[in-house]
C-alpha cells in the first residue's frame, strides 16, 4: 500500500467545516468513488469535522489518498487536543436521541464508512480515522 498524496487543513471555525466537505468531495472524486459512496464519505466528514470544531475545541483534518493493489482509498483523520471522550458508548449515540445532547452520532458516521478507528482519552484529545475504498 502506498500513499499517493496527502495533506492537512485546520478545522477551527464554521467555514472550515464547509471547506473540509469540499476537500473531501474533491478527493473522493479524484479516487473515482461512486456517487453514493462519495456522498456517504462527505456526510461523514461533515459530522466529524463539526465534532472536532464544537467538542474538540478545534483541530485538524489530515487526508491521504492510498493505492493498494487495484483499489484506491481515501483516508481522513480528525484530530483535536480537546477534552477527549470520557464515555465512548454515549458518544456513539445520536445527540438528539440521547437527550442530554452529549451524543456525538459517531455510530451513524461509522456506518457511512468502511474503516473507522477511534482513539481517545479524557484529557488527551481525540483522533478519529475513517477510510473508504473504491
Amino acid at each position: 500500500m502506498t500513499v499517493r498524496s496527502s495533506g492537512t487543513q485546520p478545522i477551527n471555525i464554521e467555514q472550515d467545516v464547509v471547506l473540509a466537505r469540499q476537500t473531501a468531495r474533491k478527493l473522493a472524486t479524484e479516487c473515482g468513488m461512486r456517487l453514493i459512496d462519495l456522498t456517504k464519505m462527505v456526510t461523514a466528514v461533515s459530522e466529524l469535522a463539526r465534532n472536532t470544531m464544537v467538542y474538540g475545541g478545534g483541530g485538524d483534518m489530515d487526508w491521504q489518498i492510498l493505492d493498494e493493489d487495484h483499489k484506491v482509498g481515501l483516508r481522513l483523520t480528525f484530530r483535536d487536543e480537546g477534552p477527549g471522550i470520557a464515555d465512548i458508548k454515549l458518544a456513539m449515540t445520536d445527540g438528539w436521541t440521547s437527550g442530554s445532547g452529549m451524543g456525538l452520532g459517531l455510530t451513524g458516521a461509522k456506518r457511512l464508512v468502511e474503516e473507522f478507528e477511534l482513539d481517545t482519552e479524557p484529557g488527551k484529545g481525540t483522533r478519529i480515522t475513517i477510510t473508504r475504498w473504491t
Partner: protein
Amino acid sequence: MAALQNSTLDAMKNKQAQLLGEWINGLQTSGASRNLKDHDLQQQTSEFLQLIVSGLENDNGNNVNAPGWEETRQFLEKLSHSRAQLGQDSQQTASFIFALKGPLFSLLQNHYREQPALLAEQLWEVSELLDAFGLHTIRTFQKSREAVIKRQQEELLELSTPVVKLWDGVLALPMIGTLDSQRTQVVMESLLQRIVDTGSEIAIIDITGVPTVDTLVAQHLLKTVTAIRLMGADCIISGVRPQIAQTIVHLGLDLQGVVTKANLADALKLALTRLGISLGKAV
C-alpha cells in the same frame, strides 16, 4: 549469493540493441506479442531493460520488493494492467519477462566463455532476478483480473434487477434470488434513481422470487422503503407468500406501515387506486 558483476552489467549495457532485438524476436515468434503494436512493444522492452540495468547499477540486489526497485515494479504493474485490459492471459504477460532470459543467457555465455564458474553464478543471479519479476507480474495481473471480475459482477447485478414501468407513476422491481447486502444496495440505487427520473410516486417491490426473508433481508427492504419515502414516493411490497408472512410475524418484524400484497396484480390495483385511476371496460 554473490551480486552481479560489473562486467555483466557492462556487457548488458554495451549489447542493449542486440539484446532488445533478440528479445523482441523471441516474443513475436512465440506469439506473446500478438495484439500489440510494434511501437508499444519496442517502447516496453526498451524501458524494462533500462530499468533493470539502472536498478542493478544502483545495487538493488535480488529482492524485488526493495524500495530501489519501486520504479520497475510500477512499470510492471502498468504493463500487467494494460495486458489484462487487452484480454491477454497471465502466461503471455509473464512471457514478456521470461523471454528476455534467452538473449541474456547467450550474451553471458559469450562474455564469460573462459570462466565457467563465474558464468554459472551470473546466470543464476540473472535468472533469479527475472523470475522474481515474472512472479510479481503474474500476481499483479491476477489482482487486475479480480478487479475486472468484480466490476462485471456489479454490472450483472444491475442487469438482473430491472426496474419496470407498470403505469404512469408506478414502477415495479421484481427481485429474484437471495437478497444480500451488496445486491440490495445496487438495486436500491437504481430503483431510487428511476423514481426520480420518471417522477413515479409508487414503487412496487415484488419478492415472489425471494426464497427466504430473515431479519437481515427485512432490514434491507425497510431501508429501501424508508429511502423511498424520504424522497417523497411510496412503496408497496408484493409477492408476500403465506410462509413469509408467518416468518415476519414470528420474527416480530415491524414493517412500519408498509402495505404488503400477496401478488403483483393486487399491488398494481392498489397503486392505481391511490393515484386516483380507475379502469373500465370499453363498451
